């Protein structure tokens, strides 16, 4: 197992390196905007552009820039470790900005994940146990809405109804950290983003859970479990659910990994200063190192989540181990 993990980690590192190179190619070589010109003001002289370019590190050859970037990520730069470089926009270190934004996104992602697991999976279980009942039909109807209604529709709708019309100030947009504003304010301002973001996933997970569980409950080992005289509750939870959860757990890992890279629509609509919103801002303002950093982080979460999910799967399904 140890060897397997090491091999996979090396693969993760390789994939991330590839991501960095491709991002550099896309944003440093191909774009029509030149950040040195943009950040040199309204009437830039050639000397000014050259100075800005030099300060941004853009005057070197592309391979050199890439190598320096990778080196700084691993070894740190003058702003600390990992070396995430300088933001052209604020001309300050990227690391504190990215870390604080990442914190917000993590809170958003984890909260939403909790909501969609607590909402989606029980609904899916109950639906599976009573297929074609009223509950099942309602649940699958809800699932259809959840899967179809996009965040940029549900988000503003939520804000409009609860914050604007009903005047529930605590449900408005914006991020209010626990440290500064207390648990209550922090929580109420997250209700909207969590709910809206989780709805899509909850719906999806409800459908998946239902389908998996129905299939699992038709398996022979369920019959054996009943034949042993186990209570129906035990049969469903320990035998049925246990088997049908495995694909869900892996999917959850991948979904969460992707979400940690930033849910930019939710973040923009609810004015949460997360890393997804920052990616958009960075791209539109030509803040090149910010773009690479955010892409790298998102890539890291996804590839790492893939690795974790594979390992977890081996724990959950003994048939997969050591193969």
């Amino acid at each position, binding site marked *: 197992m140890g060897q397997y993990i090491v091999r996979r980690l090396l693969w993760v590192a390789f994939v991330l390196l590839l991501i960095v190179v491709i991002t550099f190619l896309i944003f440093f070589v191909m774009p029509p905007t030149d950040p040195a010109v943009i950040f040199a003001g309204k*009437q830039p002289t050639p*000397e*000014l552009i050259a100075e800005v370019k030099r300060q941004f590190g853009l005057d070197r050859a592309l391979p050199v820039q890439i190598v320096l970037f990778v080196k700084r990520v691993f070894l740190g730069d003058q702003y600390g470790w990992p070396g995430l470089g300088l933001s052209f926009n604020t001309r300050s270190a990227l690391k504190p900005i990215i870390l604080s934004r990442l914190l917000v996104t993590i809170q958003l992602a984890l909260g939403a994940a909790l909501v969609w697991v607590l909402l989606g999976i029980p609904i899916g279980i109950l639906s599976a146990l009573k297929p074609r009942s009223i509950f099942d039909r309602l649940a699958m109807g809800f699932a259809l809405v959840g899967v179809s209604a996009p965040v940029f529709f549900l988000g503003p709708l939520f804000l409009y109804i609860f914050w*604007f019309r009903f005047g529930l100030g605590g449900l408005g947009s914006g991020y209010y950290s626990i440290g500064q504003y207390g648990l209550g304010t922090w929580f109420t301002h997250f209700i909207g983003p969590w709910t809206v973001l989780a709805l899509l996933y909850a719906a999806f997970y409800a459908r998946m859970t239902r389908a998996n569980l129905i299939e699992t409950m038709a398996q022979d080992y369920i019959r054996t479990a009943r034949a042993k005289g186990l209570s129906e509750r035990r049969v469903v939870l320990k035998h049925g659910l246990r088997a049908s959860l495995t694909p869900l757990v892996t999917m959850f890992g991948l979904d969460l990994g992707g979400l940690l890279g930033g849910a930019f629509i939710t973040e923009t609509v609810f004015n949460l200063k997360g890393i997804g919103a920052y990616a958009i801002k960075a791209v539109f303002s030509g803040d090149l190192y910010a773009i690479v950093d955010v892409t790298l982080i998102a890539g890291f979460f996804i590839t790492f989540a893939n690795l974790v999910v594979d390992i977890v799967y081996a724990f959950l399904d003994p048939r997969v181990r050591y193969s």
Partner: protein
Amino acid sequence: MVTRRTARFLALVSIVAVLATACGGGGGTKATATSSGGVTKGGTYRTAVEDFGFTGAFDPTGEYLGNAWGLYSDLLLRTLVTYKHIAGIPGDEIVPDIAASMPEVSADGLTYTFHLKKGVMFGPPLDREVTSADIEYAFERIATKSLAAQYGFYYEGTIEGLTTHGGPPKPISGIETPDDYTIIFHLTQPTGDLLYRLAMPATAPMPKEVAGCFLKAGDYGRYVVSSGPYMLNGEDQLDTSSCDTLKPISGFDPDKFMVFVRNPNYDASTDSPEVRANYVDGVVMTIDTNTADIFNKIQSGDLDGTSSATTMPPKAILQQYLTDPALKNNLHVDSGDRTWYITMNLLTPPFDDIHVRKAVNYVIDKQAIQKAWGGPVNGDIATSVEPPTVMPLTADYDPYPSANHAGDVTAAQNEMKQSKYDTNNDGKCDGSVCNNIIMVNRNYGAWLDMAPVIQDSLAEIGINITVRNLETGTAYTTIDTVDNLIPIASNAGWGKDYADPYTFAVLFDSSGISCTGAINYSNVGMSESQAKECGDSVLAAWNAVTNNGADPLPSVDDKAKECYALPLGDQRTQCWADFDKNIMENVVPWAPYLYATAPFVTADSVTKYEYDQFSGAISFCHIAVNNGLDPTQVPVG
């Protein structure tokens, strides 16, 4: 399994919890507000922007954003001279600020002597007077290459001895400081609009003990020490004992918010309420990426208004404010001192022919463009280079008139007939150069709506354009790279830097041409060496349209130089008016279509609204609110 009863109970508990916290949340502690005849003193102006958009990270030496200039000039930094920070032409008048009075100018116009007021103080923790050395230090920073002074060209080549150099700031020979309260500028050439340049934030006094620690572009932006009526919240916490002990001011997070509070060291007797009334106790500006949310918050009372002209109200909301009588007074529209224009490239056929360019000016249906933009609230129809607030003398000047500014197709076609591209005399462009002409445009909002109008208008004179909709920054970079040879573009706008038409004239000066980052998109007055520098294709194009140099491109350099030297006054004004007319009639690089307005939306809590003509933003030092809030208690998320 959770039973039904338990589930219902939990649901009830959660709803109660949500309501309890929700009703209690938001807002800050209420202080008392005093009022006198409608205008209330105190309170906090709470505003939001989608993004600060600073070009130089709020370091006054390099910062070029108009909104930032407003924050500096209204709140934070006093300069030798300043403006009254009000709307209209009076808002562009120069008045003394740190200077006790207008300067003594030598007869040859090369020496300006200023006497400073006593008692103009830096904010805590510095607690000391502003001296002439502090002002001179600002100019030293402008000349320091590593600080990337983005408008350093206003001073380099004008002030003697001020040339950009690579080392740390060093004294400038052309600036004398015989004592703490006297500063003398020696100029290399007569510069009539010098006073405007001395009102710009880069020239504000900078304390060496703090600013001297930050010699890289943008770094000082988080440590700006106030010399004005307000300061950044937390400035007093700066530990100035050494450069290493300095930490960024807590009231400014470039990713999130800016909080301004009163500067306790500010002595109002050294200032004038005409220039700065300072009603509010503070300003809190937060970032909100959701534009509709900003306007909703203004209506719900969580914000007091917008602060940037770039925070455009979405069409539906704008309609509300235009039609609802309860809201009408909360929409304020002033002149933005900015022109939106179509630029034509003198190097690319068919626009190398002046008759074609004149025909374009005749044919464009500006009335339809204004409609596409959403009506007069978003702009007045432009007929010359400068907006009337910058150049009042050309306010009624319309060299290419048409009924209702809807375009005059006949006149346009008549003009076309005189061009070499109308071979069959039908008033339309003939030949392959008239088709598939790329026009660079912006890819959102009013620009998208306006593109078809331009397309249809130009089709009337046989010019068929292909519209390229690009993101704002990309659009600019595309047209400011000379060797892209973009024939025509509608994405561009130009706002004044200060109220002298010189800041528009630079657009047509040959010095405005550079291979990347050009502002003279039309290439007016381009020389052969300039063409050569920008590449073979540019040189080839130049040779083609100038017959290998036999018919050089029209140039306005000499005319500009002439007006530039004149001192402020009627003669200078008339000179620039003639310059404008010359551009529009004899060079015709542009077809201007709108003068931008600056629409702002406020909430009912604003008891006095004012617009700062200099910055193009809300005049923070003249507005008043009645919310009585303490700026340090407003949640900034």
